[in-house]
């Protein structure tokens, strides 16, 4: 009986100790010293977006000759990796940064898969509706058509190094197209490579 009680007590202590070991910590996103992972994490998107924006600003591709802002539409960004990625993780960062630069404004009324914000169109259906003050309803011919389009692709390539190691390469490819001429004003590629155990999954 005494032995059973001591065993139970030891088990309880062990559970307490172990539960104390599994602590959750917040990530310092400004200076994350956590171990790299084989898949894509927020640091990779941040690096790719920062590199793309810096390169775009330095190239002069978003400098409108008259000094005003370009209107940018977000086109298709293809996820060609083995991971389930929302490409907005990359594109949103680029959009925010370009908007802050004062050189580009993004339209949400036009997109490759339809408008990002359908409200611009829906609000126009209020025309002729007596319930609404017609002076406050959006007028015809007020929307601004996009001048530039941002498209891209995220590619993943897995390379086997030996029986225990693998290399995963991610390519962030982006293109800024002048819609009027169809010419690519700017193109950029950021490569992020990771090397690790074959047991780590990158999908």
């Amino acid at each position, binding site marked *: 009986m005494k032995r059973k009680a001591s065993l139970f007590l030891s088990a309880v202590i062990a559970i307490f100790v172990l539960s104390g070991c599994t602590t959750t910590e917040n990530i310092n996103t400004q200076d994350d*010293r956590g171990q790299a992972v084989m898949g894509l994490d927020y640091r990779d998107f*941040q690096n790719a977006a920062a590199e793309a*924006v810096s390169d775009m600003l*330095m190239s002069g591709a978003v*400098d409108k000759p008259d000094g005003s802002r370009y209107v940018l539409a977000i086109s298709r960004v293809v996820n060609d990796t083995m991971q389930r990625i929302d490409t907005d993780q990359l594109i949103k960062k680029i959009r925010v*940064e370009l908007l*802050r*630069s*004062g050189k580009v404004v993004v339209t949400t009324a036009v997109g490759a898969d339809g408008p990002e914000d359908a409200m611009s169109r829906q609000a126009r259906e209020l025309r002729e509706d007596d319930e609404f003050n017609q002076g406050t309803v959006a007028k015809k011919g007020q929307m601004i058509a996009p001048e530039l389009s941002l498209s891209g692709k995220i590619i993943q390539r897995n390379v086997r190094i030996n029986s225990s190691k693998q290399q995963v390469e991610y390519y962030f490819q982006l293109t800024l197209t002048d819609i009027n001429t169809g010419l690519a004003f700017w193109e950029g590629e950021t490569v992020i490579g990771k090397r690790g155990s074959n047991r780590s999954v990158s999908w």
Partner: protein
Amino acid sequence: MKRISTLAPLAIVLLFLAGCVTQRYMDPRVQFIDTTLPRDIIVTSVNTRINDGGLLEMQLSARNDSYYDKNLEYRIEWLDNNGFEIKTITTKWNRVFVNRHSDFRVIQVGPSEAAADFRIQIRYAR
């Protein structure tokens, strides 16, 4: 008289040593996080220009004067006319690998026309 003859070589040695101590380039915009880093990393110049789009561009030129390759990280904060920091995703720790006895450069562009100044921090890669 004999004293003068013993002091003269000492004075010459002191003058020679003083000549060897070269004045290092110092820039208040460059900050080393790790105190031992300035011994090995010599900043040779910091240049700025306003590009055709009206954005401030900076270039830091430096040299790894040590016998070892170095993995470094740098971070650039952009400041407006009033000294306030401008929020940007480009303000993050970036890695740079530098071979021993080699020159390297860091080039960056300001996030907007509001960027009037910058501060660059350098540390060993974590």
